[in-house]
């Protein structure tokens, strides 16, 4: 079974909408910059991939993730041509850090906060007019890929005719700090799969897409821009923060099973690639284990080299980017990759912008707690 993607939207640290974000990614523009709103003296890591929508003199602002999510969802709704009369519609949101930045600003700065602002139902209904269920999944760094898979399930079960999937995250001081705490040397940028990678830095933004059956899209006279072929899921059940090769391999294998494909059919792999020593090593080992010799010809790229780790939003950002790659026939580079780590030496990691046809793309997303979700997308535009 496959599902039609009929609209997408995205807000990132390198662009305010999908088109500008993708253009910037293809141009190798990085969103990394000195911390915008946190007190530099309190951290070792002084960089992140933030969206510059705050005036330093005015202090920090709450509900920024909600704002970007609404922008991305509205862009997806517009591009899908969804009208306000759409019924049997559900919204699934994946987010790692919810509105926990707003919680921090409430706790330490005294900004007002209502408990229902921690999730996204109210903000989305106000900004987009959607009336159906809005479910917020907080599944660490694979949240939005899980939401995408569950959206396909809702369609398969006939529980909805259209599902909007969103992903969003803003950087919290606590998570930036705790990641800073465990990085041996503070990184100034994220270098996925590089021998000299020093760890992860967070990013922020939102992405969204509209998913429906081919029949529903045809009834609305809307052409799919891509097909969702399947989302594989697994849980390592192994460790609260460390990844597990078997769990990652199982999620990728489950994705191929759901999509009805073999590893050899995948043209493009957008890796999770957080730039930490252990995560990248384990992800690469799992890829080699599952793809075998096919890993040599698979084109791989790592968006976190330009967007940072956008936590729960990262999976769907990569999905939206992969759809652009398929439709525009080009692949953004992995910026800052100089020498691949030994385990990835054989891999075809894209160091510079490349034009190449892509029919099937795989998007990896793995999160704390060993929660893994891998999506397979297929080109729909000939």
């Amino acid at each position, binding site marked *: 079974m496959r599902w039609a993607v009929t609209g997408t939207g995205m807000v990132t640290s390198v662009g305010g909408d999908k088109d500008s974000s993708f253009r910037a990614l293809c141009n190798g523009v990085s969103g990394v910059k000195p911390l915008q709103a946190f007190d530099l*003296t*309190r*951290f070792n890591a002084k960089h992140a991939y933030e969206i510059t929508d705050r005036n330093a003199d005015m202090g920090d602002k709450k509900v920024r993730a909600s704002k970007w999510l609404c922008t991305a969802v509205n862009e997806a709704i517009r591009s899908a041509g969804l009208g306000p009369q759409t019924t049997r519609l559900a919204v699934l949101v994946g987010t*790692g*850090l*919810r509105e*926990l930045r707003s*919680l*921090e600003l*409430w*706790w*330490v700065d005294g900004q*007002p*906060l*209502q*408990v*229902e602002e*921690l*999730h996204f*139902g*109210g903000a989305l*209904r106000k900004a987009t007019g959607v009336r159906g*269920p*809005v*479910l*917020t*999944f*907080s*599944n*660490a760094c694979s949240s939005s890929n*899980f939401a995408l*898979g*569950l959206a396909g*399930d*809702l369609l*398969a*079960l006939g*529980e909805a005719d259209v599902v909007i999937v969103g992903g969003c995250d803003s950087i*919290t*001081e*606590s*998570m930036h*700090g*705790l990641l800073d*705490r*465990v990085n041996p040397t503070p990184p100034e940028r994220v270098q996925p799969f590089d021998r000299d990678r020093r760890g992860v830095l967070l990013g922020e933004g939102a992405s969204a897409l509209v998913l429906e059956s081919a029949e529903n899209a045809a009834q609305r006279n809307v052409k799919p821009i891509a097909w969702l072929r399947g989302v594989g*899921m*697994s*849980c*390592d*059940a*192994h*460790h*609260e*923060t460390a990844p597990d090769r078997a769990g990652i391999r199982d999620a990728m294998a489950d994705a191929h099973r759901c999509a009805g494909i073999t590893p050899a059919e995948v043209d493009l792999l957008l890796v999770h690639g957080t730039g930490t020593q252990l995560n990248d090593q384990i992800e690469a080992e799992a890829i080699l284990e599952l793809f075998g010799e096919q890993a040599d010809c698979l084109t791989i790229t790592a968006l976190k080299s330009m967007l940072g780790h956008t936590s729960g939003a990262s999976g769907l950002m990569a999905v939206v980017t992969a759809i652009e790659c398929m439709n525009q026939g080009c692949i953004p580079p992995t910026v800052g990759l100089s020498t691949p780590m030994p385990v990835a030496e054989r891999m075809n990691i894209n160091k510079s912008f490349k034009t190449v046809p892509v029919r099937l793309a795989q998007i990896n997303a793995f*999160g*704390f*707690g*060993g*929660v893994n979700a891998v999506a397979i997308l297929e080109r729909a535009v000939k």
Partner: protein
Amino acid sequence: MNDMVVITGVGLEIPGLADGMSLLQAVGGQLQPGPFNPAAKLGSKGLRYKDRATQLALCAAKAALTDARLPVIAAEQLSPATFGVVVSSNLGNIDTVCRVVETIRVGHVKDTSSLDLPNASSNVVASSLAIRFGCRALNLMLCSGATSGTDALYVAANAIRAGRAKRMLVAGVESVNPATARLMNESAIALEEPYETRYLDVSAAIMLESAAAAAERGAFCYAYVGNYGYSLSAEAENSVLAAVDNDFSRVLLWLTPSCSHTQVAALVKRVLDRWGDQRPDYLDFEPSLGETYGALGVLQAVAACQWLRERGGAVLATTGTVWGDSCASICLYGAHEHAVG
């Protein structure tokens, strides 16, 4: 039968609720918080750095697994690759987030502990259940506000119906600490109709299985999971009508959100008027347990199972309407009721 989803185990961890006391027995009094000793139930290994919400959920989940006669040791788990987890909690880890940001603001990041890293991730409860009990299928954390517990049942049942899992452990948990109490109190004061209530440590868990998987191992079946209905708060009766499929006749009990809120009381009146002559009993846990927020939907499911075991029929459960703009309902049917229905 293949897409039928059944409840085969229930568990509670509410410090202050006497061992063996059902939620239905607790209604009527005002439950006082009691001592919580997770080590006595789980053993002390691996608990030291778990936050309170995780400890509560681990206890409730272990009780549900035991009740369902499933293993509670990861290495012994039955078909772990098809065993998933969904947890509902809105406030579970906010104490960690508040404490860490406060530590950084008064000092430096070096003053934080790396041991806080897992607890700063909102899904720590769901992943901790998977690690302890050996659940390797999908693992989900729902943080959708007041309807979250009901949503969790729906999502878990869908995961089974969609073939992603044969078994799903569903837990709902909220814990009390200075950060959660302050946030809930400030939010309650800001409601259209200011509201005073209590907050307790609460966790509930249920074991969902495909009817086939339950039958295969001869499991006792408390209930079948019926329809889920969702609506905006202003149209809350639509969620109720969708859950019962416009047929109130089999529903003997309705578990409602807190009737202390005018809009919930009005909803209850509107729906009961619609029900006609054969009105069901209805119950609201807020007077006895306080505001249980993201845990309520799962608590209601446990209470529904306790009712269905004794009385049969069907139980309708509704969450939301307040603390946000949405309302969710789900209907659970007694095993005999659904089999003949």
